[in-house]
């Protein structure tokens, strides 16, 4: 009797062990299995800190694009996961978690060029497709890779649209710049110096400030001491808001013209206010007044959903996410990312800024950059009517000169 019971016990223990092992194997395979039924997109955005507003807008744009696409692609549900990426090391860590634990194959990343560059490198090793929403030249230049695409006009094109217009509109001959000290700011500065030299204008000097700076008095006093015709603010987001507000409080506008080369759109205009921005020239990747059918529809949809005009970061995230989903659909696969990449190359469409195309040599979107003039209070037709479009153009390095080798 004892022997029978022992055998029964051993058999049941064996069944239990085999069962546990099978359950474990099923569990380990679950993310992969689920991933095949879903298309998992990671939105890597700066959801806290100085650029939190851009992160929020990016998030809205990505969600809107997914909704417009119907929430599915190739019959699979699009699952969006969002992670805060305040710095490059966090970006890689969160991307790694997304790829290894959740089966992420597609990423949208903004706003910091430093974060984007770090994440791109990691994504390349994992064959994950990345849509970048940042401005450093190297993203589609010497740091380019096969799996990365970028919607924003890089600093090269931005400066070549805005600075010549500033020279004409302000009749300015001497310039001083205030620049954030990191790769994006350095690119803007380099391009600014090149354009000013080409135009025969005098560059009086530059001051660098750390990202997220709150006290700009030392930079402003240096800029004002140089007595330039125009001070160019080469920073972005809250940095620009704080810098320009403090500059105006120091009386800079009484002495020099002010221009913001890389505007962040409506959220920034609201933070600064009409009075402060009167007649300031701002450069931008997008404006809600751009007259295209796609943009008009987007503005309407966003207004209905969020009860405000669409800010730039939402529009850019919307556009690039939409194109990413179009590429997946065109490729006919969401798992073979190289086929998605090939489908994305040369994809041409009517976008929010007009005709847009991602060229194959560097995966850069060829689109307009805009120059805007800020209106006086008396010129505004409604509360959010901050700007008037005064120029648009496309400037991009030839493929051979970008430094991109894929």
């Amino acid at each position, binding site marked *: 009797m004892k022997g029978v019971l022992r055998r029964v016990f051993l058999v049941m223990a064996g069944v239990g062990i085999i069962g546990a092992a099978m359950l474990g194997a099923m569990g380990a395979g679950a993310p992969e299995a689920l991933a095949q039924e879903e298309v998992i997109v990671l939105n890597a955005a700066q959801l806290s800190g100085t650029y*939190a507003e851009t992160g929020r807008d990016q998030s809205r744009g990505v969600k809107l694009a997914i909704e417009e696409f119907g929430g599915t692609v190739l019959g699979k549900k699009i699952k969006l996961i969002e992670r805060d990426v305040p710095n490059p090391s966090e970006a890689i860590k969160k991307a790694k978690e997304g790829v290894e634990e959740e089966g992420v194959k597609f990423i949208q990343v903004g706003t910091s060029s430093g974060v984007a560059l770090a994440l791109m490198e990691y994504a390349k090793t994992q064959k994950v497709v990345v849509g970048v929403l940042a401005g450093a030249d190297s993203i589609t230049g010497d740091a380019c890779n096969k799996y990365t695409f970028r919607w924003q006009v890089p600093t090269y094109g931005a400066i070549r649209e805005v600075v010549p217009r500033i020279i004409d509109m302000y009749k300015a001959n001497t310039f001083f710049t205030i620049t954030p000290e990191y790769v994006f700011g350095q690119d803007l500065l380099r391009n600014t110096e090149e354009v000013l030299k080409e135009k025969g204008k005098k560059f009086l000097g530059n001051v660098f*400030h*750390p990202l997220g700076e709150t006290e700009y008095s*030392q930079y402003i006093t240096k800029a004002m001491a140089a007595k330039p015709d125009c001070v160019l603010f080469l920073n972005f987001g809250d940095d620009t808001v704080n810098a320009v507000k403090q500059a105006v409080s120091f009386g800079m506008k009484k002495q020099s013209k002010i221009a913001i080369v890389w505007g962040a759109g409506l959220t920034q205009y609201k933070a600064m206010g009409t009075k402060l921005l009167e007649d300031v020239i701002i450069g931008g990747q997008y404006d809600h007044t751009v007259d295209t059918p796609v943009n008009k529809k987007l503005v309407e949809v966003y207004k209905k959903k969020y009860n405000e005009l669409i800010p730039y970061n939402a529009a850019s995230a919307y556009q690039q996410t939409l194109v990413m989903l179009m590429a997946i659909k065109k490729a006919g696969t969401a798992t073979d990312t190289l086929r998605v990449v090939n489908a994305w190359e040369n994809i041409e469409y009517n976008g929010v800024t007009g005709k847009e195309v991602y060229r194959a040599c560097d995966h850069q979107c060829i689109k307009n950059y805009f120059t805007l003039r800020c209106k006086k209070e008396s010129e505004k037709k409604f509360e959010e009517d901050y700007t008037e479009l005064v120029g648009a153009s496309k400037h991009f390095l030839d493929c051979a000169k970008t430094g991109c080798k894929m």
Partner: protein
Amino acid sequence: MEINLNLVAVQIFNGIVLGMIYVMLAMGLTIVWGMMDIINFSHGFFYTLGAYFAYTLVSATGNFWLALIVVPVGTALIGMALERTLLRKLYGLNILYQILMTFGIALMGREIIIIIYGPIGKSFFPPRALEGTFFLGSLFFPQYRVFLLLLVALITFGMYLFIEKTKLGSIIRAGTEDKEMVSSLGINVSLVFLLTFGLAMAIAGLSGVLASPMRGINPFMDWNILGICFAVVIIGGMGSFSGAVFGGLIVGVAQSLVGLIWPSASIIIIFIVMSAILLIKPRGLFGVRD
């Protein structure tokens, strides 16, 4: 770029203004530290709270002057409530408990601010009457910063008179030197602690109101400034009111002047100055206790 005397003069002015914010914060920090033996890591949170209260009030009423009066009262009341319910339980215990508690209050407070206001920074403008700039030849001084300098100077003088000339002030002074003696003289130390903490948080809140139109507001602004304020208190001497004033001004001016020639070093210079002073005077410039 050439650094001329005008540039230096304007930067000294800017440094003094910046220093005044540090003076305000350091006064509160040193009073609490000196009187209550609490290293208050939530001090920066009250600065942030004051900024957000001011933003809310100014957005609703358009009245900055009202915020100057109402916000410090608000932060004082919240401070006193926290002292009565949380901090009081930790008196006499190992200092680590107080550090943990106040650090926890700071973290929790920041998250509450993010829940209510979001992670995105806010801003509001100085009152219309102070929006302009004084130009003196090639020197230029924003009117708001001149106002801030004068107001904080007045408040500092008022605090000096309070500490030196009033009964409660003398109790605080005595308490920073010998708390046990004060208690043995029959003084209600609990009440003194409550009022002291309230006063310190009122000053911290007022600092937030004053700094906001200049520097903008975000939920992480305490983190930027708290380290500097601790450095100011250490430079001036723990528990010393005069030390807080001199320390704040030294730090502000050093930061501004170094920022002229080497902006990246404008924070590091604070700690270099602190180290240099401690080498010569280990208790700080006006240190009163070990």
